[in-house]
């Protein structure tokens, strides 16, 4: 039996500012909560190829494992948790006001 597919999101860093971004239904977003949850492996692979082709907007595109908590993607690994949240020593990056808008 094939291994069950862990739900994923597409993530990358924005080319100009470097911030962590995710693919949503309407394009890239800074907010993990708005990211599209991918549950089908073939679909995820195809969407990854499409996202990675946007080389003039994004850097380092990959699929990150998440848990689907009632439709809200939640990080599985602490590294993805820090990426989604920002540094712990200052309220910088995503923790600054007004930074959660659509990318």
């Amino acid at each position, binding site marked *: 039996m094939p291994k069950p597919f862990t739900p994923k999101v597409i993530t990358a860093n924005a080319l100009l500012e470097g*911030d962590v971004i995710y693919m949503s239904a309407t394009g890239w977003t800074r907010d993990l909560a708005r990211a599209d949850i991918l549950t089908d492996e073939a679909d995820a692979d195809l969407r990854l190829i499409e996202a990675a082709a946007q080389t003039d907007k994004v850097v380092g595109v990959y699929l990150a494992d998440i848990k689907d908590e009632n439709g809200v993607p939640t990080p599985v690994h*602490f590294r993805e948790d820090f990426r989604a949240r920002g540094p*712990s*020593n200052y309220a910088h990056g995503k923790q600054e006001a007004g930074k959660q808008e659509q990318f």
Partner: protein
Amino acid sequence: MYHYTDFDGAFLKERNAQFRAQVERRIDGSLTEDEFKPLRLMNGLYLQLHAYMLRVAIPYGTLNGRQMTRLADIADKWDKGYGHFTTRQNIQYNWPELRDVPDMLDALAEVNMHAIQTSGNTIRNVTADHFAGAAADEVADPRPIAELIRQWSTDHPEFQFLPRKFKVAVTGSENDRAVIKAHDIGIQIVARDGVIGYKIIIGGGLGRTPMIGKVLHDFLPQEDLLPYLEAIVSVYNLLGRRDNKYKARIKITVHENGIEDIRARVDERFALIKPLFTGIDQQTLARIEADFAAPDFKTASEAPYHHARQHDPLFRSWSDTNLAKHKAPGYAIVSISIKAHGKTPGDATSYQMRLMASLAKRYGHDELRISHEQNVILPHVHKEDLPAVYAALKAAGLGTANIGLISDIIACPGMDYCALATARSIPIAQDIATRFDELKLEHDVGPLKIKISGCINACGHHHVGHIGILGLDRAGVENYQITLGGDGTQDATIGERAGPGFSADEIIPAVERLVLAYLNLRAEPAETFLQTYTRLGLAPFKSALYPETQTATAA
């Protein structure tokens, strides 16, 4: 201070113009990331976890007030109002935007600074004793040869694609404050019968396979320095392994081939290239040495210093920990702690940078240093001026009296910023410092170096910490391993692993148990943590770290 020549200025200008065009081509899509990455790394620009990071070289840790002020201006204009001083005496900006980086580099070039070779498989920023030119125990100021090596290694055509990065450190003192035995090449200036020469140590390094460097030459004549270094790097460039990143550093080359074999190869190469060095390097060195002439030290009364020590207990405490012996009568070396309890080790705000710059101009012959321990040094301050310097520092949150104590922690950026990290370092450092400040124990504990790395690459020098902490990812959870008895001085020693790691919640109490155990174990208050450890070994500290295991065995 080294003064840039027209050549230096033109070189930087051209290099920055090239990079500006490369950034433009990346943004307009003409360059892919794969094409652009090596170009940005050559100019010190990384892409980290949340943002770009620009690593600016502070050659051998020396800068003047104008340069420090410019670093503050850059932090305000293009970053978030602060900078992070690193264990390679560099400064890192954690939040630059790609489009702004060429302007940042131009702003740096205006004050003779750059970010060249702060990344990539090249010879990196040459580090030096942060007390260079000031220390009472120094044979000679190591900065002239550090500058000579910087000039020789910058854009050196043979050494732009080495098997791996290459780090050089220089000291002019037997008391090693530059960790030279943990570098690819460590150089110590030595005197024999009144003649200056160099002890050359190679193959040291921390990281995944920590090694203490071995002596390749115990007394190299002055005029042979550059050809000999070129011979070493040349031998490494051909012999070093390119098949496995983890075996590519010169420490592995030396380990696998043996120091005798390496010495024979270096001697052979040296004989071949020595005639090509016609003496221009020595003429250049003479000019550089003139730039580093000692300032005109003043003669003044030390009375204000003694008065403040008698009447101000805070000043006395600070002067006990943060001053070091200067070579000039009446002078002291001031270490400014960038380790206020609970703050991020090595982070200074633009306000603090400007203040330190103005103190250097007013009281310190316009010189500042960055130490590999992530503090800032005013190398030349007359004791007369110390009360005023301390008052200004204290008002800016820079008066912490903790140099060399438990809260003077080296911590790498860890997973709060670094893309390579496997765990966070900064919060652990903050919590240890805060905890021992609450306990009011750190002055009683005395000299104790804690060094924290957030991954096996060991930027936080954990292997040479008296207490080293290594953050790892164990099955998706942050886990912290402790090493004990490491030493980064002339008696360089790699710390010994104490046992299983601790979770983020357990690590602070574990360090506390260790330190309390030391207080019980030490023969007398003057015996330092490291001395007690050396005397007694791992066992009693291990019992303190793992009390449950002991109970279980006893039962």
